[in-house]
């Protein structure tokens, strides 16, 4: 009798928890260093506080017009989901959510043990795990033609293309690269099934552009020998909205940034925007403005004027040094950085206004990216870290 009662009570409690949702999926497992109970209590406390703050905010914000007092600000959100089980630090992430309406949104992740996970974002489980690059670390992944194809770059100095259509998981092709560095490649679609791939070249400072799927090198970009730029650290291939000629942004080891015209093999502009190696960059072609982070405490935004000259626009000093990755959201409203200090930071894109500092990971964050959901409110941000977890966040999604 007792046992029966206990069982039914437990069921009720479970149902209640499910429906009202005080426990989130992220807490299904055991959160590090916290018991379930303390987690729950913390959550309730925080919930209460944020409710109060929201009330106050609601009345105050109208009166004062703006509101930025730290003391009253809302505490930063927790991750929406956490994906575990990569078995190694997560190096790169790529969403694929908008190709087919009825299909589940998926997330690719590449980790340091050479595995590529394909995460189903409905079930939050890995659908498939691909073993690649001779168990060497995966540096970068990108989809080709929706979810049917994948391209991955590994530390074995090779780029592999994958056929994933109809459940296959076969490597179609493997292209050897000349560089054993950490520089991630950059991909740009030129036509249907036709791509350009920028990759670090054989000698230092050199960048090579390949044509896919032909695998033939199209251009080799060599900066002048006396420039002393060091190795290329990050690449961004893009096409200006007006012109047809693709352009390439390269961040170098010495902290300088260059813009190349591919077809003329010419360096258009050069900007020394950091004192340390540039670790990451992203570019917004609409506003002709980009962002770069390095191993120092500085985040720089720079613009491109009509003469294709790079100009430093804004710099922001962060609290801790080292930005591993940065990504501008598709709607060009916000920008996320992955910090060596375990934190993900969100900034307003226009003025680099600091918006949020997200703390979840317990080791450096390696990559951050935004999903391409069709409905803006469903959009997610994913971050992969050295602590082998992928955190999924929903931030600034309200229209």
């Amino acid at each position, binding site marked *: 009798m007792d046992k029966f009662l206990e069982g039914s009570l437990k069921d009720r409690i479970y149902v209640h928890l499910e429906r009202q949702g005080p426990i989130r999926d992220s807490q299904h497992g055991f959160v590090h260093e916290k018991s379930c109970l303390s987690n729950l209590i913390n959550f309730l406390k925080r919930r209460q506080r944020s409710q109060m703050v929201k009330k106050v905010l609601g009345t105050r914000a109208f009166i004062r017009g703006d509101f930025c007092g730290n003391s009253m600000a809302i505490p930063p959100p927790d991750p929406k989901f956490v994906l575990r089980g990569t078995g190694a630090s997560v190096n790169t992430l790529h969403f694929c959510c908008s190709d087919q309406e009825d299909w589940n949104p998926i997330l690719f992740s590449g980790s340091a043990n050479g595995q590529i996970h394909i995460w189903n974002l409905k079930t939050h489980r890995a659908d498939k795990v691909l073993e690649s690059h001779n168990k060497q670390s995966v540096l970068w992944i990108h989809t080709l033609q929706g979810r049917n194809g994948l391209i991955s770059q590994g530390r074995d100095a090779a780029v592999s293309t994958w056929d994933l259509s109809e459940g296959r998981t076969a490597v179609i092709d493997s292209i050897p690269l000349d560089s054993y560095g950490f520089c991630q490649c950059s991909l740009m679609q030129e036509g249907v099934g036709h791509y350009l791939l920028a990759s670090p070249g054989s000698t230092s400072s050199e960048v090579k552009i390949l044509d896919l799927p032909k695998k033939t090198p199209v251009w080799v970009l060599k900066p002048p020998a006396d420039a002393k730029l060091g190795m290329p650290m990050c690449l961004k291939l893009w096409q200006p909205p007006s012109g047809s000629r693709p352009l390439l942004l390269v961040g170098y080891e010495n902290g300088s940034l260059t813009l190349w015209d591919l077809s003329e093999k010419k360096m258009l502009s050069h900007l020394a925007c950091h004192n340390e190696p540039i670790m990451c960059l992203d570019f917004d072609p609409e506003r002709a403005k980009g962002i770069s982070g390095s191993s120092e405490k500085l985040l720089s935004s720079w613009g491109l004027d009509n003469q294709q000259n790079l100009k430093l626009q804004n710099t922001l000093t962060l609290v801790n040094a080292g930005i591993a990755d940065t990504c501008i959201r598709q709607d060009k409203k916000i920008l996320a950085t992955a910090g060596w200090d*375990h934190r993900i930071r969100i900034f307003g894109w226009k003025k680099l206004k*600091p918006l949020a500092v997200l703390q979840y990971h317990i080791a450096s964050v390696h990559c951050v990216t935004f999903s391409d959901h069709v409905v803006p409110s469903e959009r997610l941000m994913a971050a992969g870290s050295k602590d082998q977890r992928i955190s999924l966040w929903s931030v600034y999604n309200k229209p």
Partner: protein
Amino acid sequence: MEPEILEVHCLIKQAISTLSSSRDRAEIIHTLQSVKQNLRGPETANPSPQKKEFLKTYYSHFLQVLTNNLSVDWLQLLPVNQEKELLDDFFLNGPPHEAFLVLLDTITATRPSLRQERCVAILEQFLQEDRMAQLIEEICLEYTSPHMSSLQETLLNKISALPDHMANKLEKDNRAIFYPENYYPLLGQEMVLVLERIYEQLKGGMDSSLFFVSQLLGKVCMQGHTDAVLHVLVPRLTILTQSDCIWQRISWRLVENVPERWMENVVSGFVRLSAGPNVLSRLLGNIVLKNKKANFVLTHKFLLLQYQLKVLKKLLETWSNSSALRHTPIEQQLYISKAIVIILAELSDSEIQEHKRELLSGMMAGVECHLDSNIARVRQLGMAVAECLSARVNSGDHRLKFEYAEDDELRELKSLSNPRHLSSWEAPPQQHKDESSQLESGQSLAETSLNPVESRQNSQEVQDSESASELDSDDELIPYDLSIDTELQRNRAPVYISDSVEVLMTSADPEQIEITLKAVENLIRKNPTASREISVQLTKVLLHLEDKFNISGFTGLRQGGLVAITVTDTIPVTQYLTTEFYAVNYSLTQRLDILDVLALAAQELSQPDSSQRATNESPSIQLLKSETSGAYNPSQQWKKIIEKRIENKTRRFTRGASRPEPEAVPNRLSPVAGYFFFPLIRNYDRPQTPFDFLAEESLIMGRLIHTLAIIMYFSVNALVAIHMGKALLDFIWAVRYHTDAYVRQGTLFAVSSVLLSVPNNILLTEVPDELLEIRCWLADVAENDADEGCRRSALQSLLLMENFKKKLGVFTE
């Protein structure tokens, strides 16, 4: 006598008698006009004999008559519109020196009256119409005639001292034109005019003399108006002498003719105001060879080029003389240092290499004695000069490099080591005869300087509009709480004091040590009971802690911890520290640290509890903040303490409403002051001490005395103060004439702190004889000491003693 001249005689005599007696308007006007006819005459080279005679014989007399007549009713006789014509013209058109003398005599001889006022007005007119230039020129022309010399003397005095005469006489009614700041530049302009006329004469082949101008220039410069006159004269001459050799000769002669006794002022003025050596040599020519005085001034007083090496050696000798260093004021040393640096910059490399050995030996000796000094400023000065010296003497890598914080003084000193390039002098303006072109260039300058502002404004506007358009989107996004964004720390600070002792003793992780060190002071203060259990051990650990990892603010953090533990568990820790101060095997730094900690702890104990301090808005003495290096040097604080004390004693009536009295709390230092003081003072001359304080280590001796004095000062109102005071006075008596200025400063500070801390009446009853002796000693120091700081603090102590005397009225000689 020729008839025309006779005619003039009659006319003037008649006119004078008419003017002095008649009261008839028509008659007076007629007379004046007829005399004026004589004055005017045709403007030719050879004036008519009547005019000549009039000017020579009667002009001065006539003017005197005129001035005597200047009274209200007489002036009323003249028609208003013709007053100037009839009266002023006599003064402004005749020989200027006569008019000048008559006017000035009248002004100085009369009381404030209409006559005086009228004369002042005419004199003003006289100056405005450039009659002064006319005067100087005429005197120059007649320089040869022998009877002029006394007249010249008079004129020289009167012209150069005109502002003084006027100010003395007119007092408050003085006119602006007679103010020195207006008059002397005007005089300068007049001189320029005279020189220009002389230039024209020379060009026309006539002979001319500059003697009077030179004399006037010398006299004016001698009176201290060098800058006012030469500011007008030198730039003009600079332009004029650029390409014209006649002007150059004029300029040379102008300076040459200055009488010897005034030469120095003129030449120094030229040196100061001329733009660069090129211009100077153009203006002065070869005066050095012709004039002995100028030679002396330029080559000895100003140390110009040729004699540099000799001078440098002499300077180096002084610079490296330790006795000179000890007994000359620091300002003089600074001057010598500057001179050395400048000469070094001017000497050529070959000259330096030639005398390399002498320079090096001088440098070595100098550096040694400078570094020995206990005064930081002297040390730094020595280091800076030595760096400059070695940079010149040693080529390549073998140059000295010291570590010191650069301040303005040192930067200035070092900047002197770069010789000023000829091109850095302001390029003299091109030859412009007329001023309008200069004005133009000034305008264009102003325009160019305006333009950037405009363009900047434009860009500002553009930016503004940009940011306005960008305003919209970012503000929609409300930031979350960003306060968690703090510096990432990989290690956790210890929570218990015993843990931190553990870490400090054993850990080798720099970050861990840094965090612990930062936390230790707070831990001690938060948990006094736990700290007391291990106080001596913790003190030992902290005292022996070395800055192995170059932690920022290490000294300050360690000091903070030591002070906190001393305050928390005073008796055992002070016992330990005072014993260790005299123990063997400690470095100088550690010993000095002990002194600092004791002084700071005494200060903290003497103040109300920190919890109460928060409520009390301004404590009588601020809690000492650590300085840039993080370490605090209490020995520099004593000046402030004394100043503050004096400030507190000064009564001000304008103070606002008095603050509520702070609550009374027991003095925490009072029961333990002896533990700080006596062990320190007791052991200094024991044979087992590691060094001979009295003889060798004057730095540590000075610091010891300073610390004792600080403890003494903070023990005010303690019962034990009188015993401490007696002991301290005994102690300093032995070192009162110590050779080191720093030690002397300490003894003086000790005296003043005894005077301030021990109640006056007790002091007088207990140690009256000592006080008398100290007073004599202080008076001696205040008068004779080489160090300015010593003199000043001796004076302050004397002042304190005088105050006692007033207060008690029993302090008899």
